């Protein structure tokens, strides 16, 4: 038996499928990226041709996926330890670390160039900055260095509506930054609520999550503070060109519920939490998923109804 034939027989036991490569792109995170970027594009005052819009969203999605692949490449060591991430393609042994790096770099370069060609150079440059921010600033540097890691991560995940807006208009204004603020300020309460009932995972991985470094009491206070600031920004957005009566109604109801949940979490006693298996924290986490989707959904509804004189102020 030659070296080569031995080598050929030593390939991975479980061959990676296309699905495994797709999983590298973090499709669930990508779906949020696609949705918020689409809302940013649609809410912009300048309409774009559906094909250009489709291309813009596609390349933003690929850029987001590329970030995910590079994140998995860098975080392979901690993904192996955490229960939540053990099934990812690299720790599961289906995809090699080098492959994730290759795929991430290839798709990053391609998505940036193609977005610049399909829309404008500003949008392409902003996508490049977003990928750099998420991969280098967040994943490689601050994620393991500060308990405020999730805040920085939230910034990276909040850029897509801004990119969508720039792709349509080629310029900046206050509205996309308010949409940015929605995701940016929503991310910490969303993830800290998760961390409250998943603390052991982050402990084992040695990631300085707020629950690990400052304890649960401090985390609860942080959730409340961020929720109050988030509510202020969410309601402010209602009175801009992307807002309107539909958005205002949605924002008032959701922020009232979100604030109520944050106050309940802040007041909670640890022993009660343990006894009811973090019931309030879990329901707050579920509400947070709905919260962002409905806010952006309301902005989208306003944009779609505007041509018929029904949306906006």
């Amino acid at each position, binding site marked *: 038996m*030659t*070296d*080569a*034939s*031995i*080598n*050929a*027989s*030593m*390939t*991975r036991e479980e*061959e*990676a499928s*296309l699905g495994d*490569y797709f999983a590298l792109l973090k499709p669930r995170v990508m779906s949020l990226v696609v949705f918020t970027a689409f809302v940013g594009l649609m809410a912009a005052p300048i309409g774009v*041709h559906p*094909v*250009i819009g489709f*291309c813009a969203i596609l390349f933003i999605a690929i850029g987001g996926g590329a970030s995910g692949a590079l994140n998995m490449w860098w975080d392979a060591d901690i993904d192996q330890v955490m229960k939540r991430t053990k099934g990812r393609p690299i720790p599961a042994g289906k995809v090699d670390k080098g*492959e994730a790096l*290759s795929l991430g770099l*290839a798709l990053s*370069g*391609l998505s940036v*160039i*193609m977005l610049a*060609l*399909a829309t404008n150079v500003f949008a392409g440059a902003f996508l490049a900055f977003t990928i750099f921010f998420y991969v280098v600033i967040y994943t490689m540097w601050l994620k393991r260095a500060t308990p405020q890691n999730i805040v920085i991560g939230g910034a990276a995940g909040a850029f897509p509506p801004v990119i969508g807006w720039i792709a349509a208009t080629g310029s900046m204004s206050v509205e996309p930054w308010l949409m940015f603020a929605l995701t940016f300020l929503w991310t910490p309460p969303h993830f800290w609520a998760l961390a409250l009932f998943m603390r052991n995972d982050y402990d084992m991985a040695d990631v300085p999550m707020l629950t690990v470094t400052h304890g649960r009491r401090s985390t609860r206070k942080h959730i409340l503070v961020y929720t109050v600031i988030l509510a202020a920004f969410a309601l402010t957005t209602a009175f801009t060109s992307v807002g309107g009566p539909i958005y205002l109604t949605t924002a008032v109801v959701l922020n009232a519920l979100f604030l109520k949940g944050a106050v309940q979490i802040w007041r909670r006693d640890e022993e009660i939490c343990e006894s009811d298996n973090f019931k309030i924290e879990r329901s707050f986490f579920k509400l947070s998923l709905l919260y962002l989707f409905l806010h952006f959904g309301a902005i989208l509804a306003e944009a779609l109804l505007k041509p018929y004189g029904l949306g906006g102020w």
Partner: protein
Amino acid sequence: MSNRTIFEEVSSDSKQQSSPTPGGIDRKRRGARGAIRVWLAVLFALVVAMIAVGGLTRLTDSGLSITEWRPVTGAVPPMSEAEWQAEFEKYKQIDQYHLMNTWMELSDFKTIYWWEWGHRQLGRVIGLIWALGFFGFLVTRSIPTGWTGRLLLPGILGGVQGAIGWWMVASGVTLGEGMTSVASYRLATHLGLAFVILGFLAWYMFLLGREERDLMQARRLKEEKLFGMSTGLLHFAFLQILLGALVAGIDAGRSYTDWPLMGGQIFPPRPFMIEPLWKNFFENPGLVQFIHRVAGYLLFAFAVVVWLRGRRSAHKATQFAFNAVFAALSLQLVIGIVTVMTAAPVEIAIVHQAVAVLVWVLILRARFLSAYPVATSIKGH
């Protein structure tokens, strides 16, 4: 009859059996593999240059400046002012001059003449180098067993290519038919054959780069699925190259300069304006460019699938070969878009053609390594 031991020699004068010596495969006429490979590499480089010069001849609209086919005597360019004037007068007899270039002075004509003459002269040089090499190796009996036919093939195809070149030019040196350039079908045939010749040269170089015994061992490790996929990719790329030639032949790359739309629409306006209908697929600039674009997207999508499969090869060299294909195709996609968005200026259009050559050779390389993987040592595993 005396008793013998079982292992005793039956005959006392039987010769001692010689032990087998290794390298039986290579004891067949090995030939001058290295020298032939160098010769093929020179031909390969010249054919690449030929494709580039041919592309520039087309892009500068120089292809019809020499109105006659003189394979031998044409090697000597006009030397005197009178000879130049005579050539210019012949050019003045064709439609391209009357419909496009009546403004030309002799100095302008010389520019386009040198492009076409250079292209033809390079063809003669290639023919000469092939003939000298082939017959030289043949006379000195340096050609390895089974390689004579293979090495004859590029020469035959080169001869056919010269004839097709004239057949192509003949379609444009007309008067009263309104032809200002060569027929795009013939241009596509000419370019297609150039890529076929280049492909054979590259493949033979890959084969000669390895010993026969090494190839026989490697063949046992052939990755059938990957080989099949890379063959499909090769054919698809060839089709796209032919479509690119059709685009170049009718200047379709300059007709719609927006992307991803065409004239602000998904489908170009008036895609079936030419009668009969089928002619639109070859002669309607909007439709031809649209087909080239869509084929490009499909080729790229298929390349991604092949690349992901190639990444899973057990052999590092094969993985790297497929990475190179994907990188080159990504680059080609971007350059293609830039080409249409800038209305195909000569310098960008020629880069697009040059990268097509690169993609073609890299696909062949990946296909070769699927068929004959390079053994990876277990030590480094």
